[in-house]
């Protein structure tokens, strides 16, 4: 019988080399900061595969649009026009309120909340594994996407960009186990931090003292304190509180408003200007003094 491997190193030696390489990679990726750049390059290299993988779905949705009847298109068009009209009307009111709000804020001496640039992106790949909840979108550094940029949709906050390639980038969802987001309870302004659990329909609020005023159905919005997410976007609703006095903290669970397991289009948000990010962090200090007792 021929030996299994005529040339090259023996099987255990190969395994040893592979183990050595992967342990090195893991250490590099998990315990140092240098991997962000490396990941961006790698994402850029493999992005054709995402486009390839997305091809069947894109073709199917194209075909279904092709065969959509004229009548249905007209109906849809009509409906969209109505929605647009309604929303434009609301928009006018909103602009007025925004101006008023800015004026009031300037009277109070605090910085107006910055409006931001937006861009719609399509989801190329969803990876909702129990161990990592990430999506890949079809916009990259060519469109001005940068790391740590917030991602929202019409229902609420989705997550943030973690690595950017030229034509695609990868975002971490708020439900990922490695993600946490700074929030505020809309009802009373209490500040909380929500961490992902790896499930698309639940996040957990960390370190809530037993005396905290939090109820089922409370709406949680972004606080803007983390310097990444703009202030005031809806994120989740408190669904479950278990008050066990033996635990050091309350066990509070919330359900994200965004449907994280069926994302198709996302909205990328840019802060208006770079320096304002720092200022956005600063003003809540004054407001926070009112709720400082909660921490």
């Amino acid at each position, binding site marked *: 019988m021929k030996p299994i491997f005529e040339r090259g190193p023996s099987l255990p030696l190969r395994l040893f080399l592979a183990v050595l390489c992967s342990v090195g990679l*893991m250490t590099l990726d998990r315990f140092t900061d240098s991997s962000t750049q490396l990941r961006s390059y790698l994402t850029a290299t493999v992005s054709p595969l995402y486009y390839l993988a997305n091809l069947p779905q894109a073709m199917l949705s194209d075909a279904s649009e092709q065969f959509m009847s004229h009548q249905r298109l007209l109906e849809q068009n009509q409906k969209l026009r109505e929605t647009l009209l309604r929303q434009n009307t609301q928009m006018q009111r909103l602009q007025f309120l925004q101006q008023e709000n800015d004026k009031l804020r300037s009277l109070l001496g605090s910085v107006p909340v910055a409006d931001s640039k937006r861009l719609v992106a399509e989801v190329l790949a969803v990876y909702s594994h129990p161990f990592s909840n990430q999506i890949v979108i079809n916009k990259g550094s060519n469109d001005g996407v940068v790391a740590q940029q917030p991602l929202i949709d019409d229902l609420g906050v989705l997550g943030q960009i973690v690595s950017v390639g030229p034509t695609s980038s990868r975002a971490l969802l708020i439900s990922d186990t490695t993600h946490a987001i700074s929030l505020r309870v809309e009802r009373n302004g209490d500040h909380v931090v929500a961490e992902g659990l790896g499930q698309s329909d639940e996040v957990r609020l960390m370190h809530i003292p037993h005396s905290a005023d939090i109820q089922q159905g409370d709406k949680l919005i972004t606080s803007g304190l983390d310097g990444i997410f703009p202030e005031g976007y809806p994120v989740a609703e408190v669904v479950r509180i278990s008050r066990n006095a033996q635990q050091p903290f309350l066990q509070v669970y919330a359900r994200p408003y965004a449907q994280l397991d069926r994302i198709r289009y996302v909205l990328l948000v840019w802060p208006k200007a770079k320096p304002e990010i720092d200022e956005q962090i600063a003003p809540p200090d004054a407001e926070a003094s009112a709720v400082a007792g909660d921490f």
Partner: protein
Amino acid sequence: MEKSHRLYLVYLSLMFSLVLAVVPLPAMVKLFRPDWPLLVLFYWALALPFRVSIGTAFVVGFLLDVLVGTVLGVNALAYSVIIYFCSAHHLKIRNFSILQQSLVIALFLAFYHYFIFWLSHFLTGVVFTMAYLWPVVTGAAVWPWIFWLLRRIRRQFKIH
């Protein structure tokens, strides 16, 4: 020389399996997605142990890490270890019936998922759910078809 082996077809099939691993699927179906790259690697490691072995497994695992966004090296390590056992026992596994092979594959897949869980638990702190083991069942179920398909390709194009 490379041409006469037609090894590019092996790499093409591996590439295709990687694409299948990231094809967007509805949330309900996604839980049951078999580990295509690992299954295709199994076949080539059994059929051509001289050509496809730990090195290839490492590269494919690394690409999967990049594609799905796990901590770099997790899948690379798991693939290398599993293909090591597969290569070391390829003569035995080859002689099994297709049903027995499926069982062995299921065992390997279960080991793979346990291994990935253990590594992820250590690196990022995740919790275990039983739903996570569905790909073991579906992987074992699709093995006979993968085996049949890849054997046809191998014989048709005389890859050796």
